[in-house]
């Protein structure tokens, strides 16, 4: 279980305008500013949950993950992970958690990943037979066999990320903090990592807290999302419910061939969102879906018709806009 109550983390940052004069001036007189990276955030995550942790750049997501994994001392507030206070970094906690950062590597750069794995086995004191079994399982799931003995520096980004995940999971942690685990990966690799995280969560009943700028990761993996902006929590709840509340209308996409329709005709069906050649996307309220779809398929002979929830990106954009307006007016 993960619990944060009134968590704050402030940083003192040296500020200086650009230019030579400012550089000289800063030698004698420095201006500091306190940045509230996390500002009174509270939430509880039960064991086995998969939760998406969302927010724009600089919202405080990574800082929160670093506090939860014990790398940073909170400025104030209480944090508990699997019954431990993270910043004390007790052995039992470190054995129970893992943190994967898409932009930081734990693999030894000039040695093959197998050497990092051997070191992690020794440091986490994983029994040999259990290690062999876990490594075999991870090797199969992530298709690592051709990568294990190549120096890390010669691996591609995607290959390295798969090896990072294996290194992070060899001790079979029960809480996974995943910070942008699919960053820079191609679509196929993103899907592979997503599938792997889901199967690890189900098999080991592990708790997963995931940040990602790829909303597909979040939609595919996380039934619940926590959203923060400017260090403050602005939403915590079911993903589908959020989408329904923020924008209950569906998106109906379709392709028309051999039929010409005017914008006025389309406006009778719903609000036109995008039009690319003969491919259209309409915003349609849920109660009108049967009649609109019937008309599209029957009268207009539409092809490749799909009914989807509005994209999460759109929902979040609206949310962040509302949160900023609220903050400004406050």
């Amino acid at each position, binding site marked *: 279980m993960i619990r944060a109550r009134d968590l704050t983390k402030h940083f003192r940052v040296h500020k200086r305008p650009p230019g030579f004069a400012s550089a000289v001036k800063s030698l004698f007189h420095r201006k500091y500013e306190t940045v509230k990276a996390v500002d009174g955030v509270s939430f509880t995550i039960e064991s086995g949950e998969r939760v998406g942790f969302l927010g724009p750049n600089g919202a405080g997501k990574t800082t929160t993950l670093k506090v939860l994994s014990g790398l*940073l001392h909170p400025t104030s507030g209480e944090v508990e992970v699997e019954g431990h206070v993270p910043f004390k970094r007790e052995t039992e906690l470190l054995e129970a958690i893992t943190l994967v950062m898409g932009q*930081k590597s734990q693999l030894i750069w000039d040695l093959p990943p197998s050497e990092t794995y051997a070191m992690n086995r020794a440091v986490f004191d994983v029994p040999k037979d259990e290690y062999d079994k876990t490594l075999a399982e991870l090797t199969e799931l992530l298709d690592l066999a051709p990568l294990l003995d190549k120096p890390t520096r010669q691996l591609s980004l995607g290959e390295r990320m798969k090896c990072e995940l294996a290194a992070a999971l060899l001790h079979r942690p029960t809480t996974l903090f995943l910070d942008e685990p699919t960053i820079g990966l191609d679509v196929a690799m993103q899907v592979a990592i997503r599938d792997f995280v889901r199967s690890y969560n189900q098999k080991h009943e592990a708790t997963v807290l995931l940040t990602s700028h790829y909303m597909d990761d979040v939609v595919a993996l996380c039934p619940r999302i926590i959203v923060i902006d400017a260090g403050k929590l602005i939403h915590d709840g079911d993903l589908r419910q959020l989408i329904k509340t923020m924008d209950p209308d569906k998106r109906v996409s379709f392709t028309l061939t051999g039929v010409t329709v005017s914008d006025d005709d389309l406006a009778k069906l719903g609000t036109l969102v995008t039009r690319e050649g003969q491919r259209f996307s309409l915003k349609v309220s849920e109660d009108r879906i049967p009649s609109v779809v019937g008309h599209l398929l029957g009268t207009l002979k539409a092809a490749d018709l799909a009914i989807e929830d509005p994209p999460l990106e759109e929902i979040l954009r609206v949310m962040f806009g509302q949160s900023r307006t609220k903050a400004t007016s406050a």
Partner: protein
Amino acid sequence: MSATRTLRALPTLLRVGVAETVAYRAEFLVWILTTTLPLVMLGLWSSVAAEGAFKGYTSAAFTAYYLSNLIVRNLTGSWVAWQISEEIRLGSMSMRLLRPLHPYIAFAASHLAAVPFRSVVVLPVAIVLLVSSGASALTTEPLQLAVILPSLVLAWVITFNVMFMIGSFAFFVTKTMALLNLYFGLFSLLSGYLLPIDLLPSAIGWFAEWLPFRYMLSAPIELMTKSLDSGEVGMILLWQTGWAIATLVLALLVWKRGVRKFEAVGG
């Protein structure tokens, strides 16, 4: 992490440390070459002593001193301050902190793993030179010969602790290069690296007796090259043990205080 677990992990840590040392072989060789300053000093002082002993040091005594110096420096030198400082500055220390092993142990193991390789490169050269021209100035006292190894171990520990402490200051000041330069200046003068401590002006020599630098380098050299009574040998080992404990406590204290300030930048 318990002591027994650490001991169980040690063979693997050493093996990986060896693999890392071998991977960085070119850089490693260059680094070793940078520790050959004693050979330069040997040339200088040999010419001073060419026409007769200088303050009791004959040409053979200088040869024995500086070649012992080269050996001790190579076996006990440490670069952990640079590593810690860089890992803190770039944020990669985060990954180390997520492992249930104190970074002191992890860094110590990787440094210990490098010792045999440094010996392989430097020791044969030093031993050949020592035997050919400075053997007469080396000790043959059984007591001194017996305590050279423990003295070297203690010198390694003090040096590692001091460098670990300097590196840990990066938690407070981010870059520790200036601190390292200051340290190296004091070390060069007060450890016997540039010249034997008994050739220093008496006031500076007095300071050198009390500060840790002598026990990081000069102590094992003195045991190798001087004729000491058992009381003097005992005092050297006592001072070394005291400084090993004191610097360990200080290093871990600075680390503990510093890690609270860690900002885990990036990523």
